[in-house]
């Protein structure tokens, strides 16, 4: 019986593989018997019926027994599994079936046995190929030999503990030049000339800070220089590249999303602590850090303070942030008071501050500060000297506390100890920051839970103590260590190699007494490095950020990922969690900034467009021919409104400004004049705007212009009271000014009331007054006579003039159980009549409107 026919009886349909498997099992289990006809006379009994033919009888019983044994054996074999199939997803490897080295050590013997059983070839160590059969041309061979020499020289240089010179990493010089410069360095160091930088460790770690200039890319292994010319690797790149899809953006190679499916698990672990029992971590070293010091002798005028105050619209310089040292998260503005994007600020003291920025806007802010603060400010570019790990979820603190150990006496560490097992960190005060010196996390052979000494967890007083007994001096001393390039460099002193650590661990094992503490390599006070770290809870994004010196990040990362139920994530998961919690994700949800605007109208648009164009004609949605979108049709356009592949803010600007102009004297809005074609001003030659169709003609005039970010069509407004009518007469002719004056928009999070969910770039419409009654009824639910909800309603269509915004990101929300959407709306003209906060959302290329409730997101 095939799967298809069994499906007819209401059973579950089987796929091809399942059918095959089932058939295989069934075949194995059937026991063959001898057919009656196969024996010569067809019977064991003689013709007369009185005698048994013993020989034949025995033969056929023998056959049956044999078949029975065979069937037992076969059915056992069919269901057999291999040892690598029993591994959790995290430990499975692509070639584990034939390469035992891909299987954990404790299972290798069994795997080998299984391979022998199925006559598999075992992979042994690769032998060097015969030199005659290398298949290289003479030139290739020469090049390879040269690079071997180069690597050898570079190796010599690190073993002599010299940092590699800058021109080694330059992309424009060839191997010969590189070797030459390496040789001179080695020679010079032997003569002990002083202009070579000496390393203080065997790992090749050094502090790579740019003082009042941008830092060069970090020099890691020479083998990988060429791959990092344009996109720098994060410290955990090699680890992440094996486990995630990577993207190259903003000068970094950043993990985008784990290769393993994780949409649901991200939702479960990351969004609400009550449902979570694990943690999500991410290498966020691509976020650029700069340290700004005010080193002017007279500090009366608070130069730095006024600068930061200007950049954050007086927010980051309030008492809460400067004196109480709360981590600031907010918008940063440029010189024209246009928002640039999100930024994070931590004040170290009155005269120095840490600024953490997204890589896309880092360089512009850095250069601006450099220009403004000539001679007065000293700015460290710590992009490649401070790394960070972002971690969230109920197990975040437990995981962190099981890898962090402080050998020094520290009040901050003791405070951290008290909350080490807290799952729901919303109980912590807004300022939750810990800073202490910890030992190399690799000293722990396995991550181990920290003994807090409180079996029942912290009391309420302990939590309040975090706020009242904040160890300010203690933290200030560590902050100064993190922000000083020399002290960061010092933290690398005697950084252990894995070999060195293994040696010490071995000594520990053989040491007496036998029952002493063997999980942790004891800290040697004089020689071992101490790592200054900052651990901050970000109040708005509800996660923890661990900031460590760049070359120390990898040991922390390795240990963290050994804790159970800690998973790595990428940018995609950040976006997902931001969406689920109704926050904006930079840059996709920030169209009011230059970077967000370009992301939407250039980067994402072109990707979507290319995808659409690749499709065969029959599968392409013909956007221009979609009918029944609006109740009124205009000659200026057909089908879908605006650009099909992005949020068309330009259209919204022209439309809203145009309507604002047309109805300025509370005249009724004219859609189009069938008697006249478009009119132009006699003197200037500009288009005259008399009706709605003319507005769309203006849009058609400008829509093919090159996208530029010098003038953004929208500006963000957070308060309804500051929505004001744009001054349209200001910029000359009306057809120019409506395409120039930016319109105010507010960020909203919409939740869909009925079935269906919105998608990215969906259109938002207001509800026309005439249809309000219908939609209010819809909100309550329209029921059929049998008491069930009626979803087949004839929906009244809004008009083109009701378009008020776009959705920047939307999908089904796993937590809420219905569609959710983040977008921007132009809310001014009807905020008073629409108390219900209802809008209609329509996906691109469809004519179905969905009712949604919106609430404002304050940015």
């Amino acid at each position, binding site marked *: 019986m095939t799967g298809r026919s069994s499906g007819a009886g209401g059973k579950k349909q089987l796929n091809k593989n399942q059918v095959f498997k089932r058939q295989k099992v069934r075949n194995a289990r059937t026991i063959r018997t001898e057919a009656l006809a196969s024996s010569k006379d067809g019977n064991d009994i003689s013709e007369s019926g009185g005698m048994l033919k013993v020989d034949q009888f025995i033969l056929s019983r023998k056959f049956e027994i044999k078949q029975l044994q065979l069937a037992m054996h076969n059915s056992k074999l069919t269901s057999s599994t291999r040892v690598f199939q029993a591994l959790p997803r995290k430990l499975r490897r692509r070639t584990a079936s034939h390469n035992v080295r891909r299987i954990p050590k404790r299972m290798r013997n069994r795997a080998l046995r299984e391979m022998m059983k199925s006559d598999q070839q075992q992979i042994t160590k690769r032998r060097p190929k015969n030199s005659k059969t290398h298949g290289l041309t003479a030139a290739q061979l020469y090049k390879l030999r040269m690079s071997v020499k180069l690597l050898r020289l570079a190796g010599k240089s690190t073993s002599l503990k010299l940092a590699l010179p800058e021109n080694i990493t330059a992309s424009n010089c060839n191997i010969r030049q590189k070797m030459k410069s390496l040789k001179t360095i080695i020679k010079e160091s032997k003569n002990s000339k002083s202009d070579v930088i000496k390393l203080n460790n065997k790992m090749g770690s050094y502090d790579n800070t740019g003082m009042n200039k941008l830092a060069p890319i970090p020099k890691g292994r020479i083998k990988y220089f060429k791959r990092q010319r344009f996109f720098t690797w994060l410290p955990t790149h090699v680890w992440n590249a094996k486990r995630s899809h990577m993207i190259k953006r903003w000068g970094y190679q950043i993990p985008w999303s784990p290769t393993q499916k994780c949409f649901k698990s991200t939702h479960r672990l990351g969004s609400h602590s009550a449902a979570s*029992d694990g943690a999500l971590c991410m290498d966020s070293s691509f976020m650029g850090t700069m340290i700004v010091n005010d080193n002017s002798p007279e500090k009366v005028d608070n130069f730095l303070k006024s600068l930061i105050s200007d950049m954050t619209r*007086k927010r980051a310089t309030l008492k*809460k942030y400067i004196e109480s040292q709360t981590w600031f998260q907010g918008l940063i503005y440029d010189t024209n008071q246009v928002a640039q994007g999100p930024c994070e600020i931590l004040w170290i003291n009155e005269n120095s501050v840490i600024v953490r920025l997204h890589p896309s806007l880092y360089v512009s802010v850095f250069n601006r500060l450099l220009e403004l603060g000539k001679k007065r400010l000293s700015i460290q570019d710590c992009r490649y000297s401070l790394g960070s790990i972002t971690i969230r979820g109920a197990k975040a603190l*437990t995981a962190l506390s099981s890898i962090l150990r402080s050998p020094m006496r520290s009040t901050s560490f003791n405070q951290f100890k008290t909350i080490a097992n807290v*799952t729901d960190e*919303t109980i912590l005060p807004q300022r939750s920051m810990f800073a202490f010196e910890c030992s190399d996390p690799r000293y722990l052979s396995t991550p181990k839970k920290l003994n807090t000494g409180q079996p029942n967890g*912290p009391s309420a007083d302990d939590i*309040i103590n975090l706020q009242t007994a904040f160890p300010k001096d203690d933290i200030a001393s560590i902050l100064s260590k993190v922000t000083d390039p020399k002290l960061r460099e010092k933290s690398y002193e005697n950084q252990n190699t894995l070999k060195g650590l293994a040696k010490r661990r071995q000594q520990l094992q053989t040491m007496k007494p036998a029952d002493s503490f063997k999980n942790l390599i004891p800290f040697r006070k004089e020689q071992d490095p101490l790592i200054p770290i900052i651990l901050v809870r970000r109040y708005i994004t509800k996660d923890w950020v661990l900031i460590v010196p760049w070359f120390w990040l990898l040991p922390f990362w390795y240990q963290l990922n050994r804790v159970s139920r800690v998973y790595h994530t990428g940018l995609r998961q950040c976006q997902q969690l931001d969406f689920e919690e109704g926050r904006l994700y930079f840059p996709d949800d920030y169209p009011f900034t230059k970077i967000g605007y370009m992301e939407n109208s250039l980067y994402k648009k072109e990707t979507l467009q290319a995808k659409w164009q690749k499709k065969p004609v029959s599968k392409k949605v013909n956007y221009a021919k979609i009918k029944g979108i609006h109740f009124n049709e205009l000659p200026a356009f057909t089908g879908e409104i605006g650009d099909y592949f992005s949020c068309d803010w330009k259209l919204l600007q022209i439309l809203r400004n145009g309507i604002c102009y047309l109805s300025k004297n509370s005249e009724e809005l004219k859609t189009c004049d069938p008697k006249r074609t478009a009119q132009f001003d006699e003197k200037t030659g500009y288009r005259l705007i008399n009706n709605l169709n003319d507005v769309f003609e203006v849009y058609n005039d400008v829509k093919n212009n090159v996208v530029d970010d010098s003038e953004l069509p929208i500006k963000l407004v957070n308060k309804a009271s500051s929505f004001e009518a744009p001054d349209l007469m200001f910029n000359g002719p009306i057809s120019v000014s409506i395409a120039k004056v930016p319109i105010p928009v507010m960020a909203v999070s919409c939740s869909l009331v009925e079935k269906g969910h919105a998608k990215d770039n969906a259109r938002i419409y207001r509800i026309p007054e005439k249809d309000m009654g219908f939609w209010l009824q819809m909100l309550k639910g329209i029921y059929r006579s049998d008491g069930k909800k009626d979803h087949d309603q004839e929906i009244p269509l809004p008009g083109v003039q009701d378009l008020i915004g776009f959705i920047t990101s939307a999908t089904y929300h796993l937590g809420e159980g219905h569609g959710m959407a983040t977008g921007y709306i132009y809310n001014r003209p009807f905020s008073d009549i629409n108390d219900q906060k209802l809008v209609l959302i329509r996906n691109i290329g469809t004519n179905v409107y969905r009712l949604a409730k919106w609430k404002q997101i304050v940015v």
Partner: protein
Amino acid sequence: MRKMGNNKENKYGSKLIRKRPTIKTLSHKTIKSTIYVKSSSPYISVVKRVHKFIEQLNKTGRSPYVRLMGIGKAVEKTLSIACHFQEEKGRRVDVKTISVDVIDELQYQEDHEEQEEEIENDEDRETVLKKRSVSGVEVKIYLAN
């Protein structure tokens, strides 16, 4: 973490920003055996969850009872669930009264007026934590009588 419906000022010049949840720590034993009853959690779904927990605990034997915790407004619901298991299902039930410390986040109006004018967002004001005791019940529903 829920915003309070009435964040009016009280007589001390402070404003209650939010009530924080009780302190919880990570322990696999409690995850599998403890249910926190909220005033908003539906009666039937808690009953179903208790059944599910009992079934699982019978298999694993991690704990001899299922523990229900309810404080404040949720006490009545917790007790009625306890009664359901005692009377209808005939299980042994222990009830203990407890008092739990919770934390409130308060916001005081700024003293200096110059700062006050500058602050636009409530987010930028400093907050203070304060302890409060809430009484509640702890109900143990035993697997075996």
